[in-house]
């Protein structure tokens, strides 16, 4: 059913009894598939959607060990932006931003994309220069960026602690097209659109191994719901990438780390857009329900636990209090942790694996949400054409071997510093 003001009015007249499920909960097909995507999060479902929509492949399945959107797609802070500095990254994230801008029309689904702006604060002259450089790099790649002085920031967010003795707010780098999107709606929108094009979404179906032929090529997956044959298998399993490829005897340049996030009780609208603290790691936005959604650094040690520890809770709250003391009166309602696949240079991998038939979409670190549309688009392009999409040519697995790293932060092969 197409969603519109007319379908809404029609359903309202019939007491909303006619709404069907948004997507089909499928069984694994005996005949197998052209492509099986492992991982029913945003990236996996977007990949399946673009495989069907752009490349005409409809014998596609997405298998998910739990329920769709129950992993990192439900554990992020919903920020969308394309404010990267390096040539390998920025065209990709800007492509993603453009896809976000047309997403709701494309999917006929309200993903609540809200371009309220992303403001990165700077607190010193050298930091202003670094942000100016990044803003210029963004503009060279067709993204928008504005360097605000202190008065410009004050007009937007007057409640900051501008005169903080250690970290006075000097200005900020603003991307007006950045903002937030509704994480669950992104998952459901892609699932609905993919399902309508014939993609099978198979839940409660955990990967337990790979089917291989005599040459060692991957020809399908073993799952808790039986073997499923596939022409190609694409992995989009975020923090579990290392565990998934270990089933095929592979190792990745990835460590899994826990990233915590927090939400406060609901408040009246107060934070316009996304604001990030430049002297510590703290970022905040306000959800449509009114909760302040905020976070900071990863905990810094390998983890699959989906929960973090108190030192980072303290650090995040201290960062928040340093930049906007007014939030000290708000109570934290919930906190949670997601498992981020931290690559060794802080950038993702969309590439073939060393095994024929097995393809990788991994290493998103703590920044995968904003990449969802482009990640799906580029992974689908790779799976369908076996050549990388023009915006994702740098995300190669062999860059660690060849030295062509994409290290935005310039800290080297130490995941807990990215």
């Amino acid at each position, binding site marked *: 059913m197409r969603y519109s003001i007319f379908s809404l009015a029609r359903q309202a007249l019939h007491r909303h009894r006619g709404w069907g499920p948004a997507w089909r909960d499928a069984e694994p097909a005996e005949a197998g598939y052209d492509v099986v995507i492992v991982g029913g999060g945003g990236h996996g479902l977007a990949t399946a959607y673009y495989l069907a929509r752009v490349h005409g492949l409809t014998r596609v399945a997405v298998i998910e060990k739990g329920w769709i959107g129950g992993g990192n797609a439900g554990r992020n802070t919903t920020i969308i932006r394309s404010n990267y500095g390096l040539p390998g990254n920025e065209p990709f994230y800007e492509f993603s931003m453009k896809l976000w801008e047309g997403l709701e029309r494309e999917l006929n689904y309200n993903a609540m994309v809200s371009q309220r702006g992303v403001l990165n604060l700077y607190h010193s002259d050298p930091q202003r220069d670094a942000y100016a450089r990044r803003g210029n790099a963004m503009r060279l790649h067709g993204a928008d960026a504005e360097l605000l002085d202190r008065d410009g920031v004050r007009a937007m967010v007057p409640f900051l602690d501008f005169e903080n003795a250690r970290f006075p707010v000097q200005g900020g780098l603003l991307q007006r097209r950045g903002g937030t999107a509704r994480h669950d709606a992104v998952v459901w929108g892609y699932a609905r659109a993919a399902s309508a094009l014939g993609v099978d979404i198979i839940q409660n179906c955990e990967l337990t191994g790979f089917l291989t032929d005599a040459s060692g090529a991957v020809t399908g997956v073993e799952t808790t719901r039986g073997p499923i044959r596939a022409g190609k298998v694409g992995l989009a399993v975020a923090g*579990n990438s290392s565990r998934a490829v270990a089933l095929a005897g592979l190792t990745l340049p990835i460590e899994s780390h826990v990233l915590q996030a927090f939400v406060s009780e609901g408040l009246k609208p107060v934070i316009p857009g996304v604001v990030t603290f430049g002297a510590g790691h703290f970022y905040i936005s306000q959800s449509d329900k009114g909760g302040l959604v905020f976070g900071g650094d990863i905990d810094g040690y390998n983890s699959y636990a989906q929960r973090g*520890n108190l030192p980072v809770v303290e650090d995040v709250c201290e960062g928040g209090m340093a930049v906007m003391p007014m939030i000290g009166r708000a109570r934290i309602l919930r906190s949670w942790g997601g498992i981020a696949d931290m690559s060794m240079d802080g950038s993702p991998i969309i590439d073939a694996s060393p095994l024929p038939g097995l393809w990788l979409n991994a290493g998103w670190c703590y920044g995968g949400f904003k990449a969802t549309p482009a990640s799906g688009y580029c992974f689908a392009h790779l799976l369908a054409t076996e050549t990388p999409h023009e915006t994702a040519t740098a995300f190669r697995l062999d860059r660690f071997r060849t030295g062509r790293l994409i290290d935005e932060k310039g800290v080297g092969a130490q995941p807990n510093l990215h």
Partner: protein
Amino acid sequence: MRIPCPFCGSRDSREFVHRGDAGPARPADGADAEAMFDYVYQRANPAGLIREHWYHAQGCRNWIVVERDTRSHAVSGGAWPGPAR
């Protein structure tokens, strides 16, 4: 988390710096690029027990090897790196 430092005893994890998996061993001088690639970049990244290097920066300033479960954060051991002493 509390980290059992073999010199200082059980201490709060925030006194320590986490370096990462203690498994990879630095290749001998003159090893080929492939061995260095494995050492610098490739990680087993286990879901379960891991032995890792922690540095007691705000304590005795020793490097130690901690055994920990990445699924629960339960710490089961702390020892000196290298041969037993």
